[in-house]
């Protein structure tokens, strides 16, 4: 197997006086979907924010394709090819859908074919292209947030809970879009609480607890082992 696209080595992150990440070791293989799972508040979002550089690792290293990005400024990490979909979606509400997308295509004008693909995955974005993003529904905002990452080819996608609070019909729209992204050979690190989505999309999985990765392996293995799930996350997927 080739080198991973992303590797975290013993990452510690403090927020104010709190030690949130306490030695995270994690690998995202190239061209695969890696699920980052775990109970609420264990540090999944903090891990993604540390990778993109919103929080700084106090110890340890973050390697993108072998390159040390631990101390790189956030814009440089983004330019190095990391697409980020934050947990709160990070939509620019005062800008139109179009303006949000134009900004997301940081390296130049939006590629027409790629935009068609985005529209086909998320038709409402085409309908509301000229509307202010603040007027979109919650689900449409989430579509826009993912579409912003999809609008350019990235080396790595960091996606934080894309189905949070969405109705089942929209969850499947999201899952379909992510599956298409995966089919293009994208490397994705995905935080997801919806287990059926996690099981359907994930190739590998890392489970966090208390600021550490406590288990990592094949998603298939985790999906079929109810007692392992019970032990790692306090519930079993079969119940869902």
């Amino acid at each position, binding site marked *: 197997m080739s080198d991973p696209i992303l590797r975290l080595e013993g990452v510690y992150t403090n927020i104010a006086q709190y030690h949130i990440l306490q030695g995270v070791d994690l690998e995202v293989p190239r061209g695969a979907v890696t699920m980052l799972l775990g109970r609420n508040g264990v540090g999944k979002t903090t891990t993604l924010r540390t990778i993109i550089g919103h929080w700084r690792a106090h110890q340890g290293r973050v390697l993108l394709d072998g390159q040390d990005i631990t101390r790189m400024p956030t*814009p440089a990490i*983004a330019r190095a090819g990391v697409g980020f979909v934050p947990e709160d979606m*990070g939509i*620019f509400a005062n*800008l139109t859908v179009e303006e949000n997308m134009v900004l997301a295509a*940081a390296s130049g004008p939006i590629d027409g074919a790629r935009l068609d693909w985005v529209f086909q995955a998320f038709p*409402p974005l085409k309908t509301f292209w000229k509307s202010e993003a603040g007027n979109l529904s919650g689900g449409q905002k989430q579509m826009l947030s993912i579409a912003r990452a999809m609008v350019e080819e990235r080396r790595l996608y960091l996606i934080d809970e894309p189905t949070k609070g969405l109705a089942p019909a929209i969850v499947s729209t999201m899952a379909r879009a992510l599956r298409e992204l995966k089919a293009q050979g994208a490397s994705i690190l995905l935080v997801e609480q919806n287990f059926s989505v996690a099981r359907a999309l994930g190739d590998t999985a890392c489970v966090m607890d208390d600021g550490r990765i406590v288990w990592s392996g094949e998603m298939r293995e985790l999906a079929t082992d109810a007692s392992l799930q019970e032990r790692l996350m306090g519930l079993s997927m079969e119940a869902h």
Partner: protein
Amino acid sequence: MSMAPEHAPTMARLSLAQRLAPWMPVLLVPLLVVAGLLAIPNTSSWLTLTVSGLAMGMMIFLMASGLTLVFGLMDVINFGHGAFVSVGAFVGVSVLLMLGGMTGAPSLALNLAAMGLAVIGAMLATGAMGWAFEKVIVKPVYGHHLKQILVTMGGLIVVEQLIIVLWGPEEIYISRPEALKGAITFAGAALEKYRLVAVGLGLVVFAAMRWTLRRTKIGLIVRAGVENGEMVQALGYRLRLVFVGVFIAGSALAGLGGVMWGLYQEVVSAHMGNQAMILIFIVVIIGGLGSVEGCFIGALLVGLMQNYVAFLEPKVALISNIGLMVAILMWRPMGMIPVVKAK
């Protein structure tokens, strides 16, 4: 729950009040003008006051527009902004005094050329000063409001003292260029030429700012950054560089406002910027922090209010603007055009 499918939005039938709501701030300007007409019995006085209120508003807008973006973009409270107004005025006036031949000639073209040079000189000086001010004074205190207030006020005092060192402690009197003296008569009302120039210049600057913010990528980055700077960086843009650029542009605009204001009052002093800060802050707050449109409307309201009330009841002129601020904040606590902030 709404049954409208998301692919085919239907337009709800809005009442007139709902349709007007987004335009209310803009409508306040004509409303105030009409109120002025009702309160001031003499139509020609009203017209004179309206033009001078608009001119004053435009100049306040020039001085305030940079401050609102600096606050919106980086959450920086700059109490030293008035320093750029003063420095701009002194540099501009110095240039005009040097170009006495051009300003004294009764030729509109020569006069405007001299003013243009004065404005360019002032904007270059205050732009450069803004760059240094950001680097030395503002950058070390990002994220600390109290320190920002103290340090930028300190910066203002230092700049005022530097002006006194360079230009002396006395106020400098300056008369307007020859062709811009006096007034034209329109519908029986005397309209000062200089004020008409100020109105025109303010409109041009406002249109240029709006165009830049709406139609260019830099403008998009600035607007997005006002809302959620963290996300702008996660998309690959170096917000700090953009902020420095905005700080420089805002300082240069304050310098431009300072020249215009100095010529309007026909006297400049080291403290004039600080004195203007009260009105500037009122305008920035009632407009909505970070909103250029709000700042523009707020400035026009303040300018008109000040002039109407000074005519009707001179003693309460300044209070009237505080009253205006209170009324607007009771109506819209985040200002007339509130900027949605992330988190």
